[in-house]
């Protein structure tokens, strides 16, 4: 505490442990006295001289030789960055990254981008101005030695102060006191700077360290969530219309007893796209019920046009549905069969080779019926393969059989010629 009105000579080499000299403050009752004192002190060669006033005093900049601030350039830079950034952003987002035509408006248009460009320019300029003030003024600086002097408290209300800092090489507290008193200072005193509380409190440091440690938890959780699988439902904080009150395919519904949202087909009805075709095409025989093995009521040939596309389709379907057990070549050595036999499953039967004469001699309609309803221990595939595809499989099967059992007479003469030449 140093509230002496008289200027006190200061011994600079032995400061108190808790504080050291910051400078000296002189209080004035009017701006005019402040100005004349400031001018005089500046002429005396003091460089670290500052005036503190309750309102901006006209002429103080000249007296203290304060250079015009560069703030306007910072603000201009903010405005230019804002305008350029906003303009580029709009054109990139709406014109380049996701070009999207709305109501026939042009994708990139200068007039429609003016408002946002302007607003962002103003916004960044205003930020530049505000943060420029803080930067150029060294704010926030909550602990200033001035705040610890009693006399300073009136300076933000109605008094005026001149402050000279002690680290100025020309600083001389006695001389400062003399000059300011000459120009009408009502009080002059020295300012002590508190150096006892410079070190950050351990508690604060500990809090900072623990905050950083806590901050590591979310990244770890995220990394864990990304690296592992989870049985728990997906995290959807905002569900909104993700799950709508409607029933989709193969979902449940509380409305029906069996809990199915999809209804089973009612007998005697026809589903869309399932218009009855010729019964012979959908069954492979002309009688009302499957005839005996040797019956003449089996269709002898495929009742739909055997095109090369149908052949390709048949091959594809054969490989999807039949090859698993029958093998791609039809030898009865499909991977599933091999595996089942490896496991010594007594309930598995190795399928007969499709090249066997008993199969080759069957009429097309009977093969079709076998695919549809199964035979012996083979299940039927009616629910998995559509009738057209079953006929396609029959067609492909015939080709497969021919590949091992064809006679020269089965091949057209010109093709036979080519084959003979190549082999």
């Amino acid at each position, binding site marked *: 505490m140093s509230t002496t009105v008289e200027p006190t000579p200061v011994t600079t080499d032995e400061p108190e442990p808790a504080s050291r000299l910051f400078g000296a403050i002189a209080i004035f009752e009017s701006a005019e006295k402040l100005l004349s004192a400031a001018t005089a002190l500046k002429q005396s060669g003091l460089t670290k001289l500052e005036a503190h006033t309750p309102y901006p005093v006209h002429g103080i900049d000249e007296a203290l030789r304060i250079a015009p601030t560069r703030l306007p350039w910072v603000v201009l830079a903010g405005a230019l960055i804002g305008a350029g950034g906003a303009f580029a952003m709009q054109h990139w987002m709406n014109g380049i990254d996701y070009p999207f035509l709305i109501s026939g408006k042009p994708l990139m248009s200068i007039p429609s981008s003016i408002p946002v460009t302007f607003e962002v320019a103003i916004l960044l300029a205003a930020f530049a101005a505000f943060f420029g003030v803080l930067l150029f003024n060294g704010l926030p600086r909550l602990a200033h030695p001035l705040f610890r002097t009693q006399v300073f408290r009136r300076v933000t209300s109605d008094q005026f102060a001149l402050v000279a800092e002690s680290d100025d090489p020309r600083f001389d507290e006695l001389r400062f006191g003399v000059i300011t008193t000459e120009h009408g200072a009502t009080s002059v005193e020295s300012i002590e700077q508190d150096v006892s509380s410079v070190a950050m409190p351990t508690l604060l440091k500990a809090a900072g360290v623990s905050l950083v440690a806590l901050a590591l938890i979310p990244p770890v959780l995220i990394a864990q969530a990304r690296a592992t699988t989870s049985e728990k439902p997906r995290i959807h904080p905002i569900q909104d219309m993700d799950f709508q009150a409607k029933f989709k*395919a193969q979902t449940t519904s509380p409305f029906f007893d069996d809990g199915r949202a999809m209804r089973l087909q009612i007998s005697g009805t026809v589903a869309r796209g399932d218009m009855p075709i010729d019964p012979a095409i959908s069954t492979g025989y002309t009688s009302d019920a499957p005839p005996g093995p040797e019956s003449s009521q089996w269709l002898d040939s495929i009742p739909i046009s055997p095109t090369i596309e149908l052949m390709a389709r048949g091959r594809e379907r054969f490989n999807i549905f039949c090859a698993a057990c029958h093998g791609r070549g039809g030898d009865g050595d499909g*991977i599933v069969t091999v595996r089942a036999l490896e496991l010594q499953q007594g309930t598995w039967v190795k399928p007969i080779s499709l090249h066997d004469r008993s199969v080759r001699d069957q009429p097309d309609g009977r093969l079709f019926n076998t695919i549809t309803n199964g035979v012996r221990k083979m299940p039927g595939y009616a629910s998995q393969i559509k009738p057209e595809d079953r006929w396609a499989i029959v067609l492909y099967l015939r080709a497969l059989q021919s590949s091992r059992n064809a006679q020269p007479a089965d091949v057209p003469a010109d093709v036979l010629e080519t084959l003979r030449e190549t082999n």
Partner: protein
Amino acid sequence: MPSERFHFPAWTNRLTRLLPIIGGAAGLYAVTILALGASPETTDVGYAPQQPVPFSHKLHAGQLKLDCRYCHTTVEEAAHAAIPPTQTCNNCHNPADANGSVATVSVHPNSEKLLPVFESQASGAPIKWERVHDLPDYACFNHSAHVTRGVSCVSCHGRVDQMEVVQQVEPLSMAWCLDCHREPAPHLRPLDRIAQLDWVPEEASEVIGARVQEELGLNPSTNCSTCHR
């Protein structure tokens, strides 16, 4: 000096000088955590619900090389890729009766793991499979539109043939859909390779994809109403 008066200690100046750095770091941290934490890669990918039957795609689609379409039969014609009915399981898995005989060929006719399948077969009540890949209800996705246009199962579902338990591997987000809709070529393949999950393209996938795109005349739309209708 009256001791009651509050003064900010001198270290607050050091703290306020650090504020821009602290604020910047905190902002960067928050943005990063939010971006990473809220991304579908974190919230959605890796979802692998427990199924009522421990069905292994790794065994059936991988080892036994069953084609995807053997079970998911509707995928080429319908919007919905059907979960197979119990009947499809019965093609290979029939329960043995008291005498140990089966109606049709059967593997593991006495398996305990297959009990829910056998029960379902007996009662006619469907097995309640857990849905793994689920788009929001406002997104209209059609399997047939993609599968018949050169988009393989693997593009969205990953290597299911290597999964013991099926899990979601792609984010299934709108941006992810758009990636392909905007530039489909690298994701397309010949139609006869659609369900071949382990297919390795002979040439650069862009070249093959571009050829498929050309042949099929593909020009995927990015309009809102393509998926939201």
